[in-house]
């Protein structure tokens, strides 16, 4: 019962969204839309949906590619430093997640204007900083469970540091890296405040487009289409990651069969 309620809690808004995306008109009080059609899709395309989707994808990918390795390296360092230093460093790293984004953004905006850097670089920089607490935290727990002895073993078996990194270290922490990358992607994908303020309203990403369209009235189908398109990629990624995770945890049935060589002797 609880589970059903939970599912309803998550699914109900999506259902409304999907219905609105294909509704040409939906009078208040009707259970279902009165007219079905492509008005929402045409409107969204006209508002620049596909370009915004592309911009969001590029922005999220860039932020992910920067924040994930940076978080991993910070986490690895955190695991290695002493306990006292670790608490202070962890607090510092979590700061961007604690501070209201607007405070940070307004301050940095002034700085970047003085430095005369392109707005896009400012957006990426701030979003990387905002994603860092999440990537660092995920990688920190990954590295706490990670055993350096695997890498030491690889070295004594003749693997160079580079080979050890690629063939042993990265495969071992891959699940953590995937989770961290996903979170970094989400931070950038769903950001509105930083993009608007730093981008000066010129960097039209999907959330910015959604917000500007939602501000008006009467274009619910357009907003629904934009929101739906914004929601699908993360959901799809989540499903893919889940499937990959399940595959790597799978244990072959062979575990049950354990042929052992005959016992030679019993210890006196």
């Amino acid at each position, binding site marked *: 019962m609880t589970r059903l309620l939970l599912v309803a809690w998550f699914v109900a808004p999506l259902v409304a969204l999907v219905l609105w995306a294909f509704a040409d008109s939906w009078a208040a009080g009707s259970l279902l839309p009165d007219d079905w059609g492509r008005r929402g899709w045409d409107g969204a395309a006209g508002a620049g949906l596909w370009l915004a989707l592309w911009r969001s994808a590029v922005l999220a990918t860039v932020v992910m590619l920067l924040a994930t390795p940076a978080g991993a390296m910070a986490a690895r360092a955190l695991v290695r430093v002493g306990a006292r230093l670790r608490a202070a460093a962890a607090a510092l790293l979590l700061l961007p997640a604690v501070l209201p984004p607007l405070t940070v953004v307004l301050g940095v905006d002034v700085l970047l204007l003085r430095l005369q850097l392109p707005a896009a670089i400012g957006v990426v920089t701030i979003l990387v900083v905002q994603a860092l607490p999440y990537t660092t935290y995920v990688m920190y727990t990954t590295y706490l469970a990670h*055993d350096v*002895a*695997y890498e*030491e*073993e*690889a*070295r*004594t*078996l*003749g*693997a*160079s*540091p580079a*080979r050890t990194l690629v*063939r*042993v270290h990265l*495969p*071992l922490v*891959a699940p953590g890296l995937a989770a961290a990358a996903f979170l970094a992607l989400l931070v950038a994908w769903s950001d509105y405040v930083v993009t608007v303020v730093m981008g000066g309203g010129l960097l039209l990403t999907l959330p910015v487009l959604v917000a500007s369209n939602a501000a008006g009235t009467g274009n619910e189908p357009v907003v629904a289409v934009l929101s739906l398109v914004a929601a699908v990629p993360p959901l799809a990624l989540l499903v893919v990651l889940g499937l990959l995770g399940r595959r*790597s945890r799978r*244990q*072959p049935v*062979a*575990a049950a069969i*354990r*042929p*052992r*060589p005959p*016992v*030679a*002797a*019993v*210890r*006196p």
Partner: protein
Amino acid sequence: MTSGLSLRGITRRFAADQPAALTDVDLDVAAGSCTALLGPSGSGKTTLLRAAAGLEPAAAGSVQLAGRDLARVPPERRGMAMVFQRPLLFPHLTVRDNVAFPGRAAGLTRQHAREEAARFLDLVGLSGLAGRDVRALSGGQQQRVALARALAAHPQALLLDEPFAALDPALRQEMLDLLLELRAVLEPTVLMVTHDHEEASAVADEIAVLIDGRLVQHDAVDTVYRQPAGVEVHRLLGGVNELPGAVRDGMHESAFGRVPLPDAARRAAGPSLLLVRHEQLRLTVPDHPTAHLVATVETVRQRGGRQVVSMASERSRLVAEVATADGVRPGDVVGLAVPTEAVWPVPMPRSGSDSWPATPPPGQRPDRLPDQADASS
């Protein structure tokens, strides 16, 4: 010794305010031989092994392998492979590709490396499991794969860090037998860390004893047993008997009686602790000509198929492990035949309070035999 593994002056200090983990350790392992590095936990055994492998860059001293000085040589170019207590098989690779890992690292093609891997898997008796996921193997199988993987690196020295400590006794015996077979076939130079003297004596040619970061003794296995360098070594080798007394005219005198010493120890004199291997003592009647020691039985306990007889005098204890102690009961007075190779005198430790008079009081020899105490084994 130049063709084997040679450690010189290895010193490792983890923090300035702590005692050194290793102090000036010199150790030679002849090519093709196996030395067991024996010591209590925390004695620095693993650190020494890691220093040899190049995994402790901060360790001072020099490491040579086959005449090559390994200063500043990274672990992957040292020609040593290490097997840890945990198998540490790479979980993302199959059994075959784990064993092929060293070959791939050495630049072999995938196919060539896998052919090699098959050979080494065959050697450890696991060729049937090549395609398996390593997580599907039992603990013993995993450690076999780890051994095969280390051998596949064609190491000039094989370093084993308590490789069988996590296995149950039957499995451990299997692995020891396997290691002996591998030694016969491949003749690798082996340095094996262990805290188990039985494991050490089962596999190794020599035992090096490390206590508090210092190499206390390094000798052939039976020499370490027969002539331990001190009480700590004796205890580490499972010895339980330490009789305080004094050496005079090639005999050791204690509260239990007089024991002839081995030739190598006859020149000792003065206060001395006699270390006695409990498993070599034989029970007899107190006035039997071979009864060097006479003692009163306190307890008789079973240990596996053998029996452990504990005896005491006023100030010291004596334990004998015999095949059978039929009829011996607490309170009985028994004689003990002590072979000369079962004893070794060492200077009295300077503990102070527990000192023993140089001349022990004469042992009270009983007039009457215990009823069935002549069941000497």
